[in-house]
């Protein structure tokens, strides 16, 4: 039997996975989400410990700060894209880590402590609520617009979409997700220090998305579950478990580079369930499943 705390961390990781996923929806890669996670953890921590505010307010502050800083970071970052943006976000995360290493107000290198109050139901209430929101948005006009930006930005802008706004929105939403995850994490582990938010913390969300599948909301959940739970099940392997874990991830990606759960599977699943329920005739599947976006006729 696994420790319940593993499931709490899994919930935090799901939120981190979505933070990467939401930014990926507009075709951008962020390898700096640990920076936003750290910002959320520290601002919420300062709010509850130093200012004595309740946890709910702390979480709200973390979300607002995360979204605002995501927006500010996104503004200049929108001049750049692809690998340039990915590297700019890595740089951002390093700067944030360095800021907290040198910031005496929050204990600098030693760390900052006193946060508590995150419970399993709280984490999963938020995960379920945000997951439903993302699922609800999956076939919305907004999601389709983001998809258009991802497939081809030039075409999207000729269709009259405000690509700058869409990219900023997805980037800052992703930042808010990471910030919320950081706030929850901080109030669970009681003690935070800058090295908790290093480079690997930024890379893990990309792991969840790549393993679970980057096309659906469910994918990052599966990925977070695999990455969080596998090392637990590898406990008997003792000090070999990280090695085996790394090899397992490589094997998983080699066998299913498209991720464990793809949009095709989701469509089949939805159709299967509908057929089972017998509503397939009343509602045509076309309105429920997303059509595959055709490959653009040319590459720039």
């Amino acid at each position, binding site marked *: 039997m696994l420790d319940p705390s593993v499931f709490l961390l899994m919930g935090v990781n799901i939120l981190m996975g979505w933070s990467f996923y939401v930014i990926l929806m507009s075709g951008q890669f962020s390898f700096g989400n640990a920076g936003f996670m750290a910002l959320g953890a520290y601002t919420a921590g300062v709010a509850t410990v130093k200012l004595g505010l309740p946890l709910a307010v702390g979480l709200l502050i973390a979300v607002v700060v995360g979204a605002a800083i995501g927006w500010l970071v996104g503004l200049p970052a929108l001049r750049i894209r692809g690998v*340039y943006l990915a*590297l700019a976000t890595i740089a951002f995360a390093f700067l944030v880590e360095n800021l907290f290493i040198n910031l005496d107000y929050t204990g600098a290198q030693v760390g900052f402590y006193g946060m508590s109050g995150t419970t399993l139901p709280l984490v999963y209430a938020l995960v379920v609520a945000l997951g439903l929101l993302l699922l609800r948005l999956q076939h919305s006009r907004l999601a389709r617009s983001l998809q258009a930006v991802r497939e081809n930005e030039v075409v999207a802008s000729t269709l009259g979409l405000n690509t700058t706004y869409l990219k900023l929105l997805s980037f800052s939403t992703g930042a808010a997700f990471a910030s919320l995850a950081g706030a929850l994490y901080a109030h669970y582990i009681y003690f935070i220090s800058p090295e908790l938010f290093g480079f690997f913390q930024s890379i893990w969300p*990309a*792991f969840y998305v790549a393993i679970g599948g980057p096309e659906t909301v469910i994918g990052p959940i599966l990925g977070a579950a695999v990455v969080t739970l596998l090392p637990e099940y590898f406990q008997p392997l003792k000090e070999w478990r990280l090695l085996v874990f790394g090899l397992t991830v490589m094997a998983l*990606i080699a066998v299913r580079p498209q991720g464990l759960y793809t949009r095709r599977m989701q469509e089949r699943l939805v159709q299967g369930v509908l057929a089972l329920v017998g509503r397939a005739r009343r509602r045509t599947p076309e309105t429920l499943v997303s059509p595959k976006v055709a490959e653009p006729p040319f590459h720039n």
Partner: protein
Amino acid sequence: MIGQQLLNALMLGSNYALVAIGYTLVFGILNMLNFAHPNVFALGGFLLFAGVASLALPFPLAVLLVIVGGVVLGLATELFCFRPAEHLHDELAPAISSVAFALVLTEVVAKVWGSEPRRLPPLVGGASFDLGLFQVSTIQLVILILSFGLMLAVDWMLYRTRAGYALRAVAERRDVAQLLGVNVRATVVLAFALSGVLAALAGTLLAMRLGLADPNVALSYGLRALAVMVIGGLGNVRGAMLAGLLVGLVDVMTLAFLSQAYSGVAAWVLLLLVLLFKPSGLLGTRLQRESI
């Protein structure tokens, strides 16, 4: 004093440059980031340690061991991380698979050599030369000559040999290169092998400079070389050399005149400045197409 700092900057900078060239070779051809690269770099130091300390080989043979190790690791990265996802044209899966490979390499180093830095035996006699402005020891001289020799060799190979033409052609336009009869598969494999060798040798040179093989250099020096790659211009080998020296200089100067707390950040601040004002990099002429 300033002369000594310049010498340090030169050694650090050429090291950054060598690692960055390895990144840029793979990126130029596949448009993908290889996150196993910094760990091959760290492993280079340990291969030298294994050669000279554990196996008691003479220095040239130990370097040969490092080269073979670098080739094997480069080929393994291509085979296990990048080839399986090739047909998808997806940048995320291979990048993440290479992170997993980096994790595996970290664990292997920790299993074989422990997670603490290992001290290298003295490699070259301790004589040092006084050049007026600064003193240079024999080992520093060897490191400098090897570093710049390697950079010149890579440059020569890329611009003067058939394999180099093939590499640059595939980086420019993969499909056109294939139409013109370039063996793309072999060229990709060559890029990975070359990048692995450069990383391993850079790791060896760094270990020689520090006098120890340190597993932590992967996340510090190794990642900073990623910033160096962009500062120089993606996929641009000469740019990577120039940017490496520049970042080395900035790094050493921050350490000397500011504070240790900010020494690691210099490269990243420089990266952000370059991205804001000249996103194509110092020597870059065009922006890479939108992919990672």
